[in-house]
């Protein structure tokens, strides 16, 4: 009896392996937790430093130094001291009309509109009052209101602090000082540089509006407004950037969007604590849910129609001044394989093209790894003839399948990157020639097999069939992981990789919405716009996964079935 039991006692190695089974994931867990904690700690430290800096600033401003004294000479000198060292800041002193009341304007060359300054500020002040006497101004406190009411500029603000004035002048306002006037008047003469509206290069469509966002925020919001009259489109301003202040707006449809989503977006944007945000990519990285994930959790787009479509589904858009890329949250995985054109074309072709994209994504991810698995582990699982011809072409190849695949995959990634950075006329030529030469020459030299070249080429082309550039990169990145796991464990490794990938995806959330929706949980309504795009007349509801306030897209069922609220809370 005992002997029998003891014979079942596992070998000590098994215990060691059991320990390994425990310690490795535990260490990885500790490592990642450590990373996350570090991030939190850093956040705290930054905040402390920030408050330290902020306090003296506040004291400084409270000590009246910042206020204008009301004495023209001193205030003007003060402004000169603050701004005079800049080459592009111009100071212009003059007198009002025929009187000897002195005045001065300060403006930034280039940002402020010279024509407006000449025609509307200088002209109106100098010429208009040419017949008035000085006493007309000095009586009572009328000076300021006269000035305010007689300058033909659309926005006129009063500013009583030096810092405020400096800030405004640096963004393109013209500051007007008049002797005897306690505050400065800020005249809106902003005329920033921008470019024309062009078709977005990164998201081309055959059919659809040829309009893309530009670098100017007001142009971009105007493009959204231009989509049609809509009183529900709310565009809220928020400021970001500690040292370089930038304007940022969030846009959403008032009566569609889930208010909690808007609150969450606002909250996350407010926590951004960074000196300067050059591009919306900064925001994307700072507000995403999981920065360790290879998947992009915020969608970026240059297309106003895409943004508008997302808004109408109940999503929120974030637009930053100075970049043509708007952000859309929350993102679900199916959005990465959709193009706005899917909705403009008829449903059958768009559905087929969409299925094709899913196939392309699968090929991108798994083709090279399947090749490796079948060549190095499971020759028996593929048809005999195919196996024979594959083996025959691989005869002279001195490397194992993994190395062979890695050589080609890395080469093609380098080609892609080089083609991207090269000047436009050379880029494509270089890509094609490089690809052909390397592929052909590598086969001739016996470094890789011809089938490998086919697999690699197919993979590369498939990865470019994905409409979102960054989603394509993600898949290409993961492809290497798949290749390595296939080299280690063959088909079993690919299954494990697939399970691991799915495990990661189901855990991932984008602003509270599960990333894998609408794949799961099963919701037939949302599937109408998933792998296939059903005819528009059947898509009567907005995606439920976003929990829109008003779920009905088409009018006719509004009366009948608007009691769908009780189903909405489930996810």
């Amino acid at each position: 009896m005992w002997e029998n039991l003891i014979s079942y006692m596992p070998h000590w190695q098994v215990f060691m392996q059991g320990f390994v089974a425990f310690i490795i994931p535990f260490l990885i867990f500790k490592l990642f937790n450590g990373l996350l904690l570090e991030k939190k700690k850093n956040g705290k430290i930054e905040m402390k430093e920030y408050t330290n800096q902020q306090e003296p600033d506040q004291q400084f401003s409270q000590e009246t130094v910042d206020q204008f004294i009301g004495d023209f000479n001193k205030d003007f000198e003060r402004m000169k001291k603050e701004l005079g060292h800049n080459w592009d800041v111009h100071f212009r002193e003059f007198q009002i009309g025929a009187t000897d009341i002195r005045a001065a304007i300060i403006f930034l060359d280039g940002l402020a509109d010279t024509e407006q300054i000449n025609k509307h500020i200088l002209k109106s002040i100098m010429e208009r009052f040419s017949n008035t006497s000085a006493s007309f101004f000095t009586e009572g406190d009328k000076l300021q209101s006269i000035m305010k009411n007689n300058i033909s500029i659309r926005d006129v603000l009063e500013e009583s602090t030096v810092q405020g004035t400096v800030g405004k002048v640096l963004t393109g306002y013209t500051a007007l000082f008049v002797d005897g006037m306690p505050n400065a008047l800020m005249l809106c003469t902003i005329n920033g540089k921008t470019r024309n509206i062009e078709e977005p290069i990164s998201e081309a469509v055959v059919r659809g509006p040829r309009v893309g966002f530009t670098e100017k925020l007001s142009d971009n919001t105007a493009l959204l407004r231009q989509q049609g009259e809509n009183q529900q489109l709310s565009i809220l301003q928020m400021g970001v950037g500690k040292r370089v202040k930038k304007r940022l707006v969030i846009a959403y449809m008032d009566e569609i969007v889930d208010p909690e989503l808007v609150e969450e977006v606002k909250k996350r944007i407010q926590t951004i604590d960074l000196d300067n945000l050059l591009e919306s990519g900064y925001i994307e990285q700072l507000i995403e849910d999981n920065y360790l994930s290879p998947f992009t959790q915020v969608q970026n787009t240059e297309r106003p129609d895409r943004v508008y479509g997302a808004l109408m589904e109940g999503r929120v858009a974030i637009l930053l001044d100075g970049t043509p890329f708007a952000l859309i949250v929350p993102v679900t995985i199916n959005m990465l394989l959709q193009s706005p054109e899917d909705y403009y074309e008829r449903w059958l072709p768009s559905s087929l093209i969409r299925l094709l994209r899913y196939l392309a994504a699968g090929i991108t991810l798994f083709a090279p790894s399947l090749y490796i698995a079948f060549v190095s582990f499971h020759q028996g699982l593929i048809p005999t003839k195919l196996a024979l011809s594959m083996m025959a072409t691989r005869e002279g190849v001195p490397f194992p399948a993994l190395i062979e695949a890695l050589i080609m995959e890395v080469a093609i990634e380098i080609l892609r990157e080089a083609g991207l950075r090269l000047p436009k006329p050379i880029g494509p030529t270089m890509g094609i020639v490089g690809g052909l030469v390397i592929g052909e020459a590598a086969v001739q030299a016996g470094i890789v097999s011809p089938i490998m070249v086919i697999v690699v080429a197919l993979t590369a082309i498939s990865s470019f069939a994905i409409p979102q550039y960054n989603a394509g990169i993600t898949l290409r990145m993961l492809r290497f992981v798949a290749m390595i796991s296939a080299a280690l464990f063959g088909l079993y490794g690919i299954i494990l990789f697939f399970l691991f990938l799915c495990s990661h995806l189901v855990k991932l959330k984008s602003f509270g919405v599960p990333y894998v929706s609408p794949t799961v949980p099963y919701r037939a309504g949302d599937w109408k716009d998933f792998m296939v795009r059903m005819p528009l007349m059947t898509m009567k509801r907005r995606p439920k996964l976003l929990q829109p306030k008003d779920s009905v897209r088409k009018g006719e069922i509004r009366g009948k079935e608007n009691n769908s609220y009780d189903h909405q809370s489930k996810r």
Partner: protein
Amino acid sequence: MITSPKDKITTSQTMVIIINYILATGILTLPRASVEKVKTPDVWISVFLGGIVAMIAGVIIVKLSQQYPDKTFYQYNQDIVGKWLGWLISLFVIVYFFTISAFEVRIMAEVTSLFLLEGTPTWAIILPFLWVGLYLISGGINSIGRLFEIIFPITFVIFLLVAFLSIGIFEIDNLRPVLGLGVMPMLKGIKTATLAFLGPEIMLLLVAFMYPSDKKKAVKVVLVGIAIPLLFYVITVVMVIGALSIEGVMTRTWPTIELMRSFEIPGLIFERFESFLLVIWIMQIFATFTITYYAAALGLAQLFKKSMHPFLYGLLPIIYIIAMTPKNINDLFKFGDNIGHAALFLFGALPITLLLISKLKGNKA
């Protein structure tokens, strides 16, 4: 958005979890195990009846859980039978769950090293599998539910495809005569067949995770959840026996894979389809492994009223060592039978007793 209730699963998720839990080793072993007992072609009737038995057990389990809709089994059994006895029962159930997960892992390793990875050491096959499972489970029941919903359609489509393709070598004569030797042999197979339907016991825990408005649908969920695997199993058994005949099934360790290997369809890209079957089968084993692993960890966490994470990590070496204990494949099958017998007691006899006690208690109160 953010209010989306944590740790709640939908009806379809519950159903899919049951289906994925039941579908596991049975696809590969049920034909042989049941044919060995029955020895006539009536195995498919046994399997059918086994499914019915499992359904009855499942309904009892659901009825029991519905008495305490917001608690899991680990929490409410102490209300029924008192603190210490309840604690002990919970402990048994936990041991059962992680033992079965270890069993599934080992079976997976055996089949993988036989058909896919000859020469790769068992530990190298098992360890990454355990880790991927751990990674999934650390996301909680929601992640598990969603992942199961992803792999279920894949399983469904590929399984039907593969079964349909094997129709070329199917011979109806192998299934005749129906009840040729009377009813007795068929009845002998019912117990073995029932053991393939281990899985409804997860409803002891899942009812607590369902949405309050869905809890009354739990009976329907468990019935459909068993009916679909029942369909799968009956198709498997009919196809395997139809193609390989009774004698052929008994001499093969993994008759279902042998079936897939025994036909070739030239002209398609693939001529042989056992790789497809293995792919979905490994996914199903993964599903069974993760849900039992989760159930065990959840039980420990609720028993000691701690967070789940330390138990998740602590269970890994235990599962591994149990998985490595059986010396060979026959040991492993014996081990599986013992687990099945334990399950018959734990989830056949026990729930109905508990249900009766709670009803009596409820009447008193």
